[in-house]
């Protein structure tokens, strides 16, 4: 029997506000343990939470960007459980009345578009971090992360393959980055994903028993873990067995998951409305102010790049994968209005350079002004494409403008026919044996002569003129 996977994703995205969700401690990462703490985030007796409005702003941006209904009145709730990294013994989250629900976003896979429903978006606080001493029976807790704001985005079970899951996640990440509300970094944990997976006979029918996958720490592992799980469930069903509802932990080293806890061991979190926080009321004015602040989002931008710059879908998607990259591209096109050419250089040499050095576009040593200047130099035939590669490398090293590099190194292309002619004559004189071979029919040697002439001119000769003069002198 052919099976069809049914997948839903729960994503936790750390919001990059300056301060925590319920106190004024810094959210910055990497400080000495327990230095970004106060009585409130340490859960000391008698302290009270005060909601950071910025967290609401950021979450509303996401809600608007994903076409969600916004609840005019939402509530914070307490999720009760004991763990040493949870100082109050409960996490402040949202339960019955989240800030937003019933939205969607669009993904594109192999040229096919699909909407994935978003069940709900809500706000909550992060927990601290436990470390265990390997040598002694000792555990240590760092509360710096306690109270860092999280936005949880729960998808509908609309995803039907690991690849769709990957596309959905990438789209989600791209949106949070566009909105400037999260770093969206899975490896560093600012963007975390749990997956609910079940399978059913292809077509329709009721959903099968689902399992929840945890510890999916990269895009690659999300797809791998889901594939593994689909395969595992298929084997169980094909052997006449039954899938059991459980939480499974992905092991990225062994590329497999193992059972973490069953349904019976599931926590009862005893949710109830947090009496320390008033219902969160959001009025039209607030929503309007968010709407006007929303930038052009990736799917719209991609479409515009295809229409306005006549770029193929692949190029448009890659160039709009981040707001900064798209801005870079558009700055280049503004100075040098040849989108095709700009796209080739940005996607080829520039991204190649940045990827090799592990740099983001913001940190690019080559500014959009300098890249477009380089393309102009090529266009105006001041330098050859070959020289341009050399200039580009120099720009990457020094960050200097290409004009300056070309002038300083004397790289201006030679187009003067008489000086090229004399270089050609020098080469033909020196290589009289090859000239004889050529004339005896070894016409493949033409390229050799071109190379020798370019060498003679330190690569500055205009290749078209070289070709023309060579053909002439070799007697054609």
């Amino acid at each position, binding site marked *: 029997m052919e099976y069809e996977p049914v997948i839903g994703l729960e994503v936790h995205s750390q919001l990059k506000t300056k301060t925590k969700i319920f106190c004024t401690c810094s959210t910055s990462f990497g400080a000495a343990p327990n230095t970004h703490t106060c009585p409130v985030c340490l859960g000391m007796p*008698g*302290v009270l939470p005060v909601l950071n409005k910025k967290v609401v702003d950021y979450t509303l941006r996401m809600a608007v960007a994903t076409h969600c209904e916004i609840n005019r009145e939402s509530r914070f709730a307490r999720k009760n459980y004991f763990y040493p990294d949870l100082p109050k013994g409960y996490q402040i989250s949202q339960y019955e009345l989240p800030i937003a629900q019933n939205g969607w976003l669009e993904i594109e896979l192999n040229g096919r578009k699909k909407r994935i429903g978003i069940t709900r978006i809500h706000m909550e606080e992060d927990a601290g971090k436990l470390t265990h001493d390997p040598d002694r029976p000792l555990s240590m807790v760092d509360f710096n992360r306690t109270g860092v704001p999280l936005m949880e985005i729960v998808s509908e079970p609309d995803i039907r393959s690991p690849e769709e899951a990957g596309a959905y996640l990438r789209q989600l990440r791209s949106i949070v980055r566009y909105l400037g509300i999260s770093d969206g970094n899975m490896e560093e944990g600012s963007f975390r994903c749990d997956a609910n997976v079940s399978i059913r006979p292809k077509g329709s029918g009721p959903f099968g028993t689902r399992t929840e996958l945890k510890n999916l720490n990269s895009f690659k592992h999300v797809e791998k873990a889901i594939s593994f799980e689909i395969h595992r469930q298929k084997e169980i069903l094909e052997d006449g067995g039954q899938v059991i509802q459980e939480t499974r932990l992905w092991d990225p080293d062994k590329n497999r998951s193992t059972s973490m806890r069953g349904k019976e061991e599931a926590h009862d979190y005893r949710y109830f409305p947090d009496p*320390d926080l008033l219902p969160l009321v959001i009025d039209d004015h607030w929503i309007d102010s968010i709407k006007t602040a929303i930038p052009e989002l990736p799917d719209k931008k991609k479409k515009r790049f295809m229409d306005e710059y006549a770029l193929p879908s692949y190029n448009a998607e890659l160039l709009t994968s981040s707001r900064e990259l798209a801005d870079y591209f558009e700055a280049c096109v503004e100075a040098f209005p040849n989108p095709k050419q700009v796209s080739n250089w940005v996607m080829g040499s520039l991204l190649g350079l940045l990827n090799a050095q592990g740099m983001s576009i913001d940190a690019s040593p080559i500014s959009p002004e300098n890249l477009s200047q380089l393309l102009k130099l090529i266009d105006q035939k001041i330098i050859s494409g070959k020289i341009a590669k050399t200039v580009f490398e120099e720009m990457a090293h020094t960050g200097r403008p290409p004009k300056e590099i070309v002038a300083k190194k004397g790289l201006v292309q030679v187009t003067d026919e008489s000086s090229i002619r004399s270089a050609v004559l020098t080469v033909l004189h020196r290589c009289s044996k090859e000239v004889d071979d050529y004339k005896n029919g070894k016409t493949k040697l033409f390229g050799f002569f071109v190379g020798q002439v370019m060498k003679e001119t330190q690569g500055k000769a205009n290749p078209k003129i070289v070709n023309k003069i060579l053909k002439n002198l070799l007697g054609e």
Partner: protein
Amino acid sequence: MKLYELSIQEAHRLLRKKEISSQDLTRAILDRINTVDEAVGAYITVGSETAMAQAETADKSISEGRLTPLTGIPIALKDLICTKGLRTTCGSKILENFIPPYDASVVKKLKKDGAVIVGKLNMDEFAMGSSTEHSGFKLTHNPWDLTRIPGGSSGGSAAAVASDMCIGSLGSDTGGSIRQPASHCGVVGLKPTYGRVSRFGLVAFASSLDQIGPLTKDVTDCALLMNSISGYDPADSTSVPEHVPDYTSFLENGLKGMVVGIPREYSTTQGIDPDVSDAVERAVKKIEALGAEPVEISLPHTEYGVAAYYVIAPSEASSNLARYDGVKYGYRDKDNNSLLEMYKSTRSKGFGPEVQRRIILGTYSLSAGYYDAYYGKASQVRTLIVRDFNKAFETCDVILAPVAPTPAFKLGAMTDDPLTMYLSDIFTLSANLAGIPGISVPCGFSSEGLPIGLQIMARHFEEGKLFKVAYNFEQATGFHKKKPHL
């Protein structure tokens, strides 16, 4: 003249005239504590040194002509109001050595006004109880009869005021915890409107019901303390940005035009001691004689209040008390080998039986499958009680009622009967469920010479009306002037 017997208002007058110093007054209070607290047991911690230092500062500021009505006045606090650098135990072994690194917002306000913080007062552990017998440390005795309870959970706060071991005090009221001990000890006690006084730094019992309020020797002092501690606090999201009037402006004579509501249901409540109903009836007549017009009102859902309260309060408490897990501060039992064991032994040994009883009750009420039947239902009852009061206040300005069904009972009399103890909160906890203010003012004595209080309740943020009625009654009767013999 015995300095410790002064009221806030009287002491302030003498301080202002520089006839006494705050250091004289504070020393007199500390001496009084030394003399009588062994018998009464009101204090958990006395901060003699810090108090004297604060008194010195107060004297300096008085000599420079800067003084508020509270400058230099020795005030004591129920031991669940956090004081920076001064141990705050909440009456519990689990916080026996907890020294807060912050002041509660009310403490900041008191200090800003120049008050002297004398020390921390005994209470039922985590404010759970009506007799102060559930303190993790000691018993507090009723100054009027040392064999009896002072009431609770702010028993230390009421006993300390009644026995002149402070000039005024603060307590907290979740279901009657200020008004009931005030009634039992013959002092004035006010539970303000929910949101009137900041809860920041008040160790939480039931967050949607808790409110800090004053316990004082008379109504004027109560108004003076309210002037200091009231008002919106950005650190408490549930405090309300509503104008705070000068509460002393309501202390004027005459109750003409005031309509007082008498709840029909309260007179038929079973188990009311005849001494209590007599005293309250006489009080109603007196208030009538002062010019107020009585009307009968109905609060039909009163009988469900106790059940709703004992679901909501323990539910919130079960969550509020989860932080006492031995990980970060407070008591940790060392005798264990795993995380789960550490939690279990720390909480089993750190919390007393009443606290454990309520944590279990609350945990159960919030559990999956029971939530709707318990917490959900209780919240609905709460809404009905709010409606009862709204309807009643359409026809009256204030409501008069008993505070507790009986005068103070004997120590140990109810220890094995928590349910009867719970039921004794019937007249007070409705105000907490509805969030309205209520005051207890002395209205007489039982045949055994024990004080009895009259409760007055008003609409949200109408503490002024409570002060007006209570002040007129107090001036006309003078029950507050009688002192226990110690």
